[in-house]
């Protein structure tokens, strides 16, 4: 049977077909849908972990017991999981283990665009890179087979354009007859004391040598000879762009990108007049080919930054490859009026909006974190000074208050979401208390991992497989860490929010303020409730624009009405959160009749 699947859906299908029993992940764009789709297959135990390190450790445990496992994360998640990964490379596996790293060239939804092919070389593990959904499925299966054949974790690297593109995939059945998992005692291989690890390291080097030798004859590394004036070595989505833009050049398409098939590369180089590597981000393949003593070009033409597109590839290669012209420029006449931008925005009724509005008015120096609330950086809320990685807000605040004046200390506020706090904020808060850093931490507890599309977490009360679960009591957790001042507020009550935040900012001790209203996108019954809607009385609206300071998508300025213009609330978008009503000094905003 054929289906149109995204790369992520195809990886989930591949895991199912390969007999995977355990799958773990922390949500992160562009990887999130892998685990969500794995829940379609009841044979697999799928779970969200609090972070990627835990995901990999859980997968390792299952693998050591003999189960085939998949663990998925976005590129920066591999940084978090790097600690277990580098030693897992030494222990090897029992049941096949595939680690999916979904990279994000162009940073469509990320804070950096690190090239995780470097991790495969660094950790000395093989890496496969699919170029469409069919290969996503096939390579997931192959990764698990290679993993068991060579006793190694295998990385499967996608990029956003592979994860989130759809193409046609032929479905197969799930394999049967795999050995049943059971506890295996193999301490010398799995207890990485120095004496054992010293034995394992040479085996890692030996494994990579064997893989490199086998790579020359692997079907996923494919030489396609066409016109031999130019030969291009490429992999992943770049292969598709090369075929699109230069249909007649010869290609060496790599499926295994670590280790490289050096024999095959030499063969290919000998058959073409000129050798080029087309790869996004770092010159990972190019530098290795050059180190083999082969004359090759690549990054002198192809950009180091951002993703490629057919047009960018054409632009990069015009003038150096025969027959390639820059994309046609658009005729002048079509310029048209300048178009206002359309940045993303917090949803109408988002419980974060009033908090950032208040922090802005209190002139707080906000150390921010990763989530929807990073949008608090954008105008008109404009209340964020730092945002680096998961959990960094709290450490950043601790560092700032170590060095600034007592007066400035009061302004420092860390803002972090519930899921990000579980991911890697807890240790930051532990440090803040332990080392007597006097700052305020706001935990925006909306009971969901919202940015990536509403995933459950240890505070939401449900697992990925929709089973009821213990709900962590955030206030209790913070108290257990030693925070004496933990206060929970209703973020839709601006007066309360302002009073509590300013009191805690003044206090020369560590304090935590928790907001407890759910995300408007939570679909689970009874969690988010749309309140009675609000409306603007155009007669009473003075056009003062105070309500526009919220940047709520439901509130629209109508310049042509009233004396100076009036505000209007779109009833299709209003959720009845009541925040704008509290800002109106003229009582022009009230419940719709």
């Amino acid at each position, binding site marked *: 049977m054929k289906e149109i699947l995204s790369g992520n859906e195809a990886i989930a299908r591949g895991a199912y077909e390969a007999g995977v029993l355990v799958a773990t992940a922390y949500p992160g764009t562009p990887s999130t849908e892998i685990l969500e789709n794995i829940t379609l297959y009841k044979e697999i135990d799928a779970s969200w972990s609090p972070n990627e390190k835990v995901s990999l450790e859980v997968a390792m445990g299952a693998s050591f017991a003999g189960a085939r496992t998949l663990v998925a994360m976005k590129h920066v998640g591999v940084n978090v999981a790097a600690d277990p990964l580098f030693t897992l490379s030494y222990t090897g596996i029992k049941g096949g283990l595939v680690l999916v790293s979904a990279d994000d060239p162009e940073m469509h*939804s990320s804070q950096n665009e690190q090239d995780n092919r470097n991790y495969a070389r660094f950790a000395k593990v093989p890496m496969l890179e699919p170029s469409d959904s069919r290969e996503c499925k096939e390579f997931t299966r192959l990764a698990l087979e290679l993993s068991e054949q060579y006793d190694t974790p295998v990385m499967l690297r996608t990029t956003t354009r592979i994860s989130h593109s759809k193409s046609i995939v032929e479905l197969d059945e799930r394999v049967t007859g795999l050995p049943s998992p059971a506890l295996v005692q193999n301490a010398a291989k799995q207890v990485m004391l120095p004496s054992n690890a010293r034995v394992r390291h040479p085996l890692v080097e030996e494994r990579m040598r064997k893989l490199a030798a086998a790579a020359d004859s692997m079907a996923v590394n494919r030489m396609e000879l066409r016109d031999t004036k130019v030969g291009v070595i490429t992999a992943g989505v770049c292969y598709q762009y090369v075929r699109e833009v230069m249909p007649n050049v010869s290609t060496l398409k790599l499926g295994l990108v670590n280790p490289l098939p050096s024999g095959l590369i030499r063969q290919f180089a000998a058959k073409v007049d000129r050798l080029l590597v087309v790869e996004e981000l770092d010159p990972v393949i190019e530098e290795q080919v050059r180190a083999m003593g082969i004359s090759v070009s690549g990054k002198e033409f192809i950009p180091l930054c951002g993703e490629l597109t057919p047009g960018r590839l054409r632009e990069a290669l015009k003038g150096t490859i025969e027959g390639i012209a820059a994309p046609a420029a658009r005729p002048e006449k079509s310029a048209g009026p300048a178009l206002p931008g359309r940045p993303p925005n917090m949803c109408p009724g988002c419980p974060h909006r009033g908090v950032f509005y208040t922090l802005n008015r209190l002139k707080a120096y906000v150390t921010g974190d990763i989530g929807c609330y990073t949008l608090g950086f954008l105008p008109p809320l404009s209340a964020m000074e730092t945002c680096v990685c998961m959990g960094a807000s709290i450490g950043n605040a601790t560092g700032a208050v170590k060095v600034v004046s007592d007066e400035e200390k009061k302004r420092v506020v860390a803002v972090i979401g519930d899921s990000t706090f579980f991911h890697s904020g807890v240790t930051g808060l532990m440090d803040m208390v332990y080392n007597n850093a006097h700052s305020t931490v706001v935990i925006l507890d909306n009971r969901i991992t919202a940015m990536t599309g509403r995933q459950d977490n240890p505070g939401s009360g449900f697992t990925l497989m929709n089973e009821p679960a213990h709900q962590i009591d955030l206030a209790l957790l913070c108290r257990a860490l030693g925070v004496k001042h933990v206060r929970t507020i209703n973020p839709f009550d601006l007066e309360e929010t302002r009073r509590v935040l300013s009191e805690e900012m003044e206090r020369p001790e560590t304090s935590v303020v928790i907001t407890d209203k759910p995300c408007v996108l939570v679909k689970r019954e009874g969690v988010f409730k749309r309140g009675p809607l609000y409306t603007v009385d155009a007669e009473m609206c003075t056009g003062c624009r105070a309500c526009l300071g919220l940047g709520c998508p439901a509130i629209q300025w109508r310049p042509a009405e009233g004396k100076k213009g009036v505000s209007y609330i779109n009833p299709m978008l209003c959720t009845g959160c009541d925040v704008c009503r509290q800002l109106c000094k003229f009582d022009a905003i009230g419940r719709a009749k």
Partner: protein
Amino acid sequence: MSETVTNILLVGVGGQGILLASEILSETFMLAGFDVKKSEIHGMSQRGGSVVSHVRYGREVFSPLVPEGEGDILFGFELMETCRSLPLLKPGAAVIANDLRIPPPSVLMGREAYPEGLAETIAAEFPDFLLVDGLKLASEAGNPRAANTVLLGAVSRRLDVAEEYWLQALEKMVPKKALDVNRKAFLLGRSL
């Protein structure tokens, strides 16, 4: 079957149902026996930002992205976003757009005005331009929420795929209780 690849761009604002429309298009092309690829960005852009979905079909499709300047059809869910994507089109491309204006944040806040004369700008460069009152026609079909399907019908007229595949894809992708209205909306759009 033609050797060439047809390039379709669907553009609008996050939350407008662009992904479902591009799924229906892709499903139709697969049912009709073509190779299909589609691509779009999820995540940050969903929070009310601009959305562009690329759908390509033909005998064999390589890039999941429509090469810049090679779009054959632009399916616009919102007027300003339609205009924003014109540079992706090739000369003579067809533009089918919903006559809908969704103000972006700067316009909502009164810092900028929603630009005037967008339809005229499009028509000046792309004579094959159809501006559809999706809301009105969808209401005629029985539900204003089926506006996207009216537009889809209008797009379908410009593609060389038999009606039966479109209807099969609708049946597969649209919830049962909404199917009748959507079928009506589709055929209404197809007759434009």
